[in-house]
């Protein structure tokens, strides 16, 4: 029995397709391409892989990917629920399976024609009587239909309680587009925005403007986890997993946890932060950079507070003055984030986290990046990991 999974496993390979508005091929093909790329990046063969994990939302079954890529047998098959909350849960699964001796090498993947196929901005569909459908029934009739609406509700209350303005959000929006402008894979490559652009853009759902919201894209991303021991012999410097956690907090709904006493923070992030710090023996001061899930600018504020980079209610001030820039306290979403690289449901962020550890990001900070936090979506059961360099 382990008391902590610290340093047991490492991310040994990452793979991505291009990110676009029209992939022109099936989601299965995107999945197969990025999975193959991740396995090759790890210096492994498909026959070395014996576990796969993905999203419940993914349209591509792991057994189809396995047949397509040539992975013969699987000893772990699982799906992580709740959309944007899932990405680091995939790592969590991989770590559990390897650290308990169930598997040797696990692939996690996400592939989606999120722009040319089914889009999240098209609202919640109707269907049979599941708890999920019943839950949406309390919101759909009133027009609370899209992720922007759900996040805006928490954001409005946050701004009200802490007397915050939208300046912090503007700073996040502009800084991340600056990173993307430098990243050839990003949808905002070569397209920086100014503060003026930010404020001139229309409201999507008040208080969120256009550039507070992520883009919808087609693309796939995958990663390979194996034991830290084995990772030492593989081609790339391993991104050792110091901590990995899931969390669902009291009175949790998916995107609509409006019934808690305080809705200006998301306690599921507190739960995940506490576990990651406890497992790793690290604290916020030890984290050199972060990939913070940013489907919307405002959810970065909630996470900065839960992961204790600043006090509750202070993140809207803390982010000002370049804190999240490359030479700031916490370089954040150096790939451009979901806001401006592309929306591959957070797995593209994981790939960037690994690049930061390897020292190969296109926006590699000049200061050290020995420890990187990578998080998952807001206002749902969520997950996070801390990765570090091999000691």
């Amino acid at each position: 029995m382990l008391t902590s999974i610290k340093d047991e496993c490492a991310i040994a390979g990452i793979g991505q397709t291009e990110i676009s508005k029209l992939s022109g091929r099936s989601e299965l093909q995107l999945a197969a391409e990025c999975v193959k790329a991740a396995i090759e990046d790890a210096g492994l063969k498909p026959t070395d892989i014996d576990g796969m994990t993905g999203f419940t939302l993914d349209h591509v079954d792991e057994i189809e990917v396995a047949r397509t890529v040539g992975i013969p047998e699987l000893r772990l098959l699982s799906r992580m629920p709740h959309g944007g909350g899932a990405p680091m849960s995939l790592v969590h699964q991989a770590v559990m399976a390897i650290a308990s001796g169930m598997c040797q090498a696990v692939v996690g993947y996400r592939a989606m024609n999120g722009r040319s196929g089914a889009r999240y901005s098209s609202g919640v569909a109707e269907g049979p009587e599941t708890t999920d459908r019943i839950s949406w029934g309390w919101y759909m009739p009133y027009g609370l239909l899209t992720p922007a609406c759900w996040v805006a509700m928490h954001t409005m209350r946050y701004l009200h309680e802490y007397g915050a303005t939208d300046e912090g959000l503007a700073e996040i929006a502009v800084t991340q587009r600056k990173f993307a402008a430098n990243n050839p894979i990003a949808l905002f490559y070569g397209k920086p925005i100014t503060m003026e652009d930010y404020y001139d853009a229309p409201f999507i759902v008040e208080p969120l403007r256009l550039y507070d919201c992520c883009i919808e894209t087609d693309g796939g991303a995958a990663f390979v986890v194996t034991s830290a021991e084995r990772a030492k012999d593989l081609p790339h410097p391993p991104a050792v997993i110091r901590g990995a956690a899931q969390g669902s907090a009291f009175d949790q709904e998916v995107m609509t946890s409006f019934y808690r006493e305080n809705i200006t923070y998301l306690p599921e992030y507190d739960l995940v932060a506490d576990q990651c710090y406890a497992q790793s023996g690290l604290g916020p001061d030890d984290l050199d950079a972060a990939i913070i899930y940013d489907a919307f600018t405002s959810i970065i504020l909630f996470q900065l507070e839960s992961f204790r980079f600043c006090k509750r209610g202070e993140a809207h001030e803390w982010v000002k003055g370049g804190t999240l820039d490359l030479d700031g306290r916490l370089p954040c979403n150096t790939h451009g984030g979901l806001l401006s690289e592309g929306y591959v449901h957070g797995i593209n962020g994981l790939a960037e986290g690994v690049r930061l550890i390897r020292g190969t990001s296109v926006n590699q900070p000049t200061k050290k990046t020995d420890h990187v936090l990578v998080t998952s979506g807001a206002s749902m059961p969520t997950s996070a990991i801390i990765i570090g360099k091999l000691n």
Partner: protein
Amino acid sequence: MSDLSKEETEKNAATGGDAPAAVQRMRPVIGHDNRWWWDRINEGELPIQRCKECGTLRHPPRPMCWKCQSLEWDHVIASGRGIVYSFVVVHRPPFPGYEYPLVVAVIELEEGTRIVSNLVGIEPGDVKIGIPVEVSIGNVDETLKLPLFRPVNQE
């Protein structure tokens, strides 16, 4: 290489892909655990589920009490008065069956439970957190009756 323009980004955010064909507001899925609630609404009353064992009120309805785990429940009829706890003003993407800009709010009822609904009878720009509101149950189209909230005149 990306060829994304600001105009395209706006257009895409606004159109929302293959939006549903329905011209009406989306309907709640009705099942064992919520049919009674919508039945009360259709009778013109705003109910709140109550545990028969310990009296705890809960919304949205669920089959078991999270305080005492009793499966026995009934309901009370809410006064219909409350305050705006948080709100959003939805601009885009527009969906068929709804009018924009659309104000959706989390209302904290006098009884202590919260409910999500629309605010009507107020300009979006006038909505503030904390303003008092009261329920008004009525049809939004031929067949869908919803509890909506309107501001209470503050003297």
